[in-house]
Structure formats: structure tokens, C-alpha cells
């Protein structure tokens, strides 16, 4: 073989036994390191990172089982394969303990040279395939991180581009349409900022997501500065499947944009309230209310893209839309079933 031989650390305090094992391994073509104590074994494992350690269970300082446990719990050496060896007179419970401490295999002496070689080769094969898997996983993670970065960066470019273009329009109506478009794109894009750094990328935490979006809606409306409108946000901490989260955000976007435009209370500033709460069993209710003396509008009168969007998104949520009109307040409710997302990490 032209490849460099694989290294095995042979740990045994009994010199004769250690020599015998080393001889078998040398003949099989392996490079062999030796240690006579547990602490020596740990030191060599950390420094030389041999793929396989053959570990006698009876060592003068630390027990072989403890050495194995330390090798397997130290992240730097955890991928090392450990073959525990012991003399015939060992109890079954000790063998079980050794495997429970993380040993990958167990042999009872005396061992035929062929068996020792074959088991060593099998464990080294396992080590190689595990290493290949780890490399491939690391590559995938890097790729995923890069793709995430690209997605987020591209969305940022889209938003920056739209924003810069928006300033070019002088006509107020065109400008308003453009602002609406930016706002809708923002609602969709904003979810990406908080999706992948989370423990669970299949759901989104609604409180932070909607609070951020609402703050942006107020800023974009320019109503903050002259205190014409104030937004109250009452969003329960809850995680929704990403698709539902985006749908809810888009509905909020439409309703708040509408309220900011139409809410004209007879006195004082417009107060717009955004609520997302658990409602009844397994239901969630989104409500956007304002204290504006709303004009006599029915849903058909405001049948712009906004209204169409709200209907479509409510259907996507399997929800229903209802409108509540009281003296001095106008509220739109969307009630939909709370769906749990596919679980991301299975407990194991």
C-alpha cells in the first residue's frame, strides 16, 4: 500500500501483552503508538489524534473505562474509535459498563491475531466513514450559510432599490402606490432576518416579527413625528408556521396601512390597535382596530388590491374575516386555526 499506514494507540500496562498486540498490529501494516498508563493514553490521544485506541481495561492510574469515557466526552477526541480489551475473568457487567462509557467494541483476551486485525480494520473503516460524513455535513452547513446570506442580501438589495426609486416620484398617487408596494415587500422580506438564526427555522415568533413591522409602518407613514397616530401592539408570544406568519404579517400590513390612511378621529390622535391572541380552543384571532370615525365604507367600496389580498390571505390561513363597527371604532378580525408546524428537531 502506498497510503500512509493508519495509526493505532495500544494502551496496556503489561509490557508483554502490549508487545504482543503491537506485533500483531505492525504485521498487519499499522503504525503503532504505545502507552502504559491512562493519563499517558489521554495525552497521546489528544496530541496525535489516532483514529483507533486499543485500551486495556486494567490500568494502574485511571481505569480503562474512565479513559474511554474521557476520550468520548472531549469534543476534540470524541470521534476516536475505542476498542476495549480485557482478560478472560472480567464480569459481563464490566463489559457492559465499558460499552456504556462509549467503547465501540470489546474483545476478551486471549484474542487470535486475525480477529484483532479484523476488528481493528472494521473500526477504522467506521472511523473513515464517520469522518467523511462529518466533512460532508460541515460542507452543507457552510453552503446553507452562504445561501442564507445571499437570500438575505438579495432581499436587502431589492428593498434598497425600491426605496431609492420611490423618492423619484413626484406625483403623490404614484408615490403612495410605490410606498404600498415597498411595505408589502418589506413584510415578506423581514421574516428572513429572523428565520435562520433561530433554533427553529420552520416557525416564526410573531411578537418580534409584528412589532418590528408595525414600527416600520408608523415610520414610513411619517405620522410619528407629528403625533397624528399611535400604534398599540398587543401580540402574544407565539410561534406560527412560517407560511402562516408571512400571511398574518401581510394582513397586518394591509389593515394598518388602511387605518393609518383612513383613521380620522373627531378629536385627538388616531389610535390603532394590533392584537394577535389565542382565541378559543386552537384558534388565533388577529384584530386591527382604530378609533377613527371611519367613513361609511363597506368592504366592496374598498375593494382595492388590499382588500383582495386580505381575503386571499385569510383563505390561505383557513380563517374567516369579520368586521365590527361600534361607535367611534372600527375593527377587522381574522380568526384562524392555530396549526403546529412540522417539528424541526425530533427529540432523541
Amino acid at each position, binding site marked *: 500500500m502506498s497510503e500512509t499506514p493508519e495509526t493505532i494507540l495500544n494502551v496496556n500496562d503489561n509490557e508483554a501483552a502490549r508487545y504482543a498486540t503491537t506485533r500483531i498490529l505492525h504485521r498487519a501494516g499499522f503504525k503503532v503508538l504505545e502507552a502504559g498508563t491512562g493519563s499517558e493514553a489521554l495525552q497521546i490521544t489528544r496530541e496525535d489524534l489516532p483514529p483507533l485506541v486499543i485500551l486495556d481495561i486494567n490500568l494502574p492510574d485511571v481505569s480503562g473505562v474512565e479513559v474511554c469515557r474521557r476520550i468520548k466526552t472531549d469534543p476534540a477526541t470524541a470521534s476516536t474509535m475505542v476498542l476495549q480489551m480485557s482478560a478472560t475473568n472480567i464480569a459481563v457487567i464490566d463489559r457492559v459498563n465499558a460499552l456504556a462509557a462509549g467503547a465501540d467494541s470489546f474483545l476478551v483476551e486471549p484474542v487470535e491475531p486475525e480477529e484483532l486485525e479484523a476488528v481493528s480494520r472494521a473500526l477504522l473503516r467506521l472511523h473513515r466513514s464517520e469522518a467523511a460524513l462529518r466533512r460532508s455535513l460541515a460542507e452543507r452547513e457552510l453552503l446553507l450559510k452562504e445561501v442564507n446570506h445571499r437570500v*438575505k442580501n438579495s432581499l436587502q438589495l431589492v428593498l434598497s432599490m425600491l426605496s431609492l426609486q420611490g423618492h423619484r416620484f413626484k406625483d403623490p398617487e404614484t408615490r403612495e402606490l410605490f410606498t404600498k408596494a415597498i411595505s408589502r415587500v418589506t413584510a415578506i422580506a423581514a421574516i428572513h432576518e429572523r428565520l435562520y438564526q433561530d433554533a427553529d427555522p420552520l416557525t416564526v415568533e410573531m411578537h418580534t416579527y409584528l412589532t*418590528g413591522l408595525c414600527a416600520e409602518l408608523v415610520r*414610513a407613514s411619517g405620522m410619528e413625528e407629528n403625533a397624528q397616530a399611535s400604534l398599540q401592539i398587543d401580540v402574544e408570544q407565539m410561534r406560527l408556521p412560517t407560511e402562516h406568519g408571512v400571511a398574518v404579517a401581510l394582513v397586518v400590513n394591509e389593515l394598518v396601512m388602511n387605518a393609518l390612511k383612513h383613521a380620522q378621529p373627531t378629536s385627538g390622535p388616531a389610535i390603532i390597535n394590533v392584537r394577535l391572541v389565542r382565541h378559543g380552543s386552537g384558534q388565533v384571532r388577529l384584530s386591527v382596530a382604530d378609533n377613527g370615525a371611519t367613513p361609511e365604507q363597506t368592504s366592496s367600496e374598498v375593494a382595492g388590491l388590499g382588500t383582495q389580498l386580505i381575503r386571499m390571505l385569510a383563505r390561505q390561513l383557513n380563517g374567516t374575516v369579520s368586521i365590527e363597527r361600534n361607535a367611534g371604532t372600527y375593527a377587522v378580525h381574522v380568526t384562524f386555526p392555530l396549526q403546529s408546524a412540522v417539528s424541526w428537531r425530533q427529540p432523541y
Partner: protein
Amino acid sequence: MAATILIVEDQVLIAWHLSDLVEGAGHRVLAIARDPAEAMEAASRERPDFALMDIRLHGGTSGLEAARMLFECWGVRSIYISANLDPSTRAQAEQLQALGFVGKPFLPAEVIAAIDRAVKTVVPL
């Protein structure tokens, strides 16, 4: 309290957008720099109150590097605005007394809120 702010961002569209937001909030943009060298050159001419710092910069250079030089030479701190704010990036930025973090794609309101907080922290009354 108008502040003078250095924008370090290699993508010109995003830099302009940030520039609009900074000026819209009543502050002054000192310069737009694309990499650590340009950031240092701009800051050596006139000291900014703080910087808006992207992490991945022109030609594979790092915003953390730019932030470190600005901080070590003149004590200029940064608000980090990036699509890549992983825990290790944040930890390194914290050592340079980060003024804030805003993820991309950003909400303009978040950028302005971060600038407001930074102004209160670093600009003397």
C-alpha cells in the same frame, strides 16, 4: 443632536439607502467607504461619531477588521448592519464595544432606532 456618521458598505445601493435614512433622521454622512482602507482614510480626515458597519466588504475584506481599526485608532464604535450576524461575529463586535446590531434585510425603523440609541450613547450633549 446631529451626528456625523461613517457608512462602511460595499454595495452601493444599500449604502445610498442607508445614507438616505441617516440624512432623513437629521444626521450627516461623513463618507461611504467600501473597505477597511477607505474607512480609515475617511476617518483620518474627519472623525465620525460612529460608523454603520457591514461585515462582508469589498474584495473579501472584513467589516470587523475595519471596526477594529476605527476603534483602536480613534475609539470610533460601530453599529453592525449585516446579513451575517452569527454568535461569533457578535462576540467579536462586542469586544469593540458594539453600539448595536441590525440584521439584513433591515427595517428602516430598526436602523433609525439603532442610530438614535447610538447618538444618545456617544454624542455628548
